[in-house]
């Protein structure tokens, strides 16, 4: 089909707009990467945008990779992420399974108990007091247990379980399989796509979270990566990063940029593979509405 002049003008303007979107989305990352390779003094005196490194300097990377808190943060985050996600999935699957059973008299009551918590909560202080009274302060459990089940995810999984035809369980039931066995060997394998989405939701949640760690943890050896980053990037209180060599009281600019690169690179590397799942995930959530 031939394009009219109007159409061409529209296409050109739209393409320019899209290039603009790409630029404003990616440029901040580009700036961070370029600045991380630059001389600190050059970054400080640089005026405006930066397209190439100002000078070339790998000192900040050397310093970041020598910093133990980054490694500690990474390993703490991985421990919490792996352990937490597994527990999240077990608990969410149990809840979704029971609430998806047909002909349970108490199902409605249990569902209400669960869903009410989406609209009401006690607030951060009462939750803090519960965590404190359970003796979880300064333990990794404080970062996992309070968020063991996301009710939103539970509802998503329940919808997926409900869509599985009852006839598929019949033969197992006749063989006398226990409900747990039915969940484990029939329901879960049939819900793999939804489970994958939940793994990502829970996993990303752990990767990004810092607030719980900030209020519950005192021991810096337990800090997850994001809290270490907060010390370096936001409050500037990470004293390990200030070495005597450059005799600066502040953490140098290039060092902050290098920290951003080192902490965000893994996400950028797996992003292309994850993106597909997430797109599907947001639709899984949308079906519920």
């Amino acid at each position, binding site marked *: 089909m031939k394009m009219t002049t109007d159409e061409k003008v529209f296409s050109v303007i739209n393409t320019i707009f899209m290039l603009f979107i790409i630029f404003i989305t990616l440029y901040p990352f580009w700036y961070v990467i370029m600045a991380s390779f630059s001389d600190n003094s050059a970054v400080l005196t640089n005026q405006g945008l930066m397209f190439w490194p100002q000078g070339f300097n790998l000192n900040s990377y050397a310093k970041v990779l020598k910093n133990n808190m980054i490694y500690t943060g990474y390993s703490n985050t991985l421990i919490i992420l792996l352990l937490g996600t597994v527990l999240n999935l077990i608990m969410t699957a149990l809840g979704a399974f029971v609430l998806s059973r047909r002909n349970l008299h108490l199902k409605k009551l249990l569902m209400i108990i669960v869903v009410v918590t989406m609209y009401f909560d006690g607030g951060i202080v009462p939750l803090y007091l519960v965590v404190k009274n359970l003796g979880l302060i300064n333990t990794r459990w404080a970062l996992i247990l309070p968020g063991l089940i996301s009710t939103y995810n539970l509802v998503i999984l329940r919808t997926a379980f409900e869509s599985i035809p009852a006839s598929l369980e019949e033969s197992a039931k006749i063989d006398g399989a226990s409900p747990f066995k039915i969940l484990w060997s029939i329901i879960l394998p049939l819900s793999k796509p939804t489970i994958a989405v939940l793994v990502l939701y829970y996993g990303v949640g752990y990767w*990004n979270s810092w607030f719980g760690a900030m209020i519950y943890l005192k021991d810096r050896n337990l800090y997850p990566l994001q809290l270490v980053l907060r010390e370096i990037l936001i409050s500037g209180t990470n004293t390990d990063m200030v070495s005597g060599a450059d005799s600066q009281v502040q953490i140098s600019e290039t060092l902050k940029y290098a920290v951003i690169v080192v*902490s965000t690179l893994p996400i950028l590397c797996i992003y292309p593979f994850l993106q597909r799942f997430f797109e599907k995930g947001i639709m899984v959530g949308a079906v519920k509405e």
Partner: protein
Amino acid sequence: MKSDKKKNKGRLSDNKYIKDIVQNREVYILFIPVLVYYIVFKYLPMTGAMIAFKDYIPSQGILGSPWVGFKHFERFFTSPRAMLVIRNTFKIGIANMIFGFPMPIIIAVLFNEIRNKYFKKMVQSVSYLPHFISLVVVCGMIRQFTSEDGFISYIVAMLGGERQTLLNVPEYFLPIHVISGIWKEMGWSSIVYIAAISGINAELYEAARVDGASRIRQIWSVTLPGILPTIIVMLILRVGSIISVGYEKIILLYNPVIYNTSDVISTYVYRTGLQQFEYSFSTAVGLFNSAINFVFLFATNMLSRKFSDTSLW
């Protein structure tokens, strides 16, 4: 006779539940850990929120602490801080909604107008990216770029502003909060609309083209009406949560110099509760926050049920 029947009925319904529990005990057992979780981490804090009406003394416990009625609420509402944080909460919430809501719709519609499949896929993937960057890193970047020697401060200075750390200027906090929010989420939020657009019947575009409708006319008369139901649902969700302004991003960005424009109810709850340990007072303010959040959600839902077919419950 009558009472007998009633008694019988009562016993029967008792039996019904007991029979159900006995029969399905293996299913119910699986729910016990779930129930324990909800009781301990959801309902216990809800009942713990009663300390808003007490003077909580840790050594006496939640139940043992003395009741004081609405003392903490009165203290909050008579303090000058109350009006400030309530006003900021509304300002930030409404600004985020007015500027943040249309953007994903606009770019979803324009994504749809890209004819080159690969370019389209690429722009979309790029636009989703910031959603996956952690809040701490994004806020770290914002602080860097808006510091006195950051490139955003440079651009602001070029446009006639003063070269300074932008996050120390009270008036700049709102635009920084809103613009960074759009930057981070506009691509990701557009997915819902992209999905809605892909559900529009292609024949409608065909017919519009035959009638000689321009591209802009097609957007106006086919695309937008096609995604209107989605827009309405998203709008209800958005308006319902308009004033539940999150504390995490603000805590990462603000400082005492700009509390006047950046302190919201939730950050105030955090500071008074977990930094100054005024547990009861902070819980009272938090309860007030939850209450107005709920009123908004409830009201928007009522309105939408009245004026359209879409509602959340």
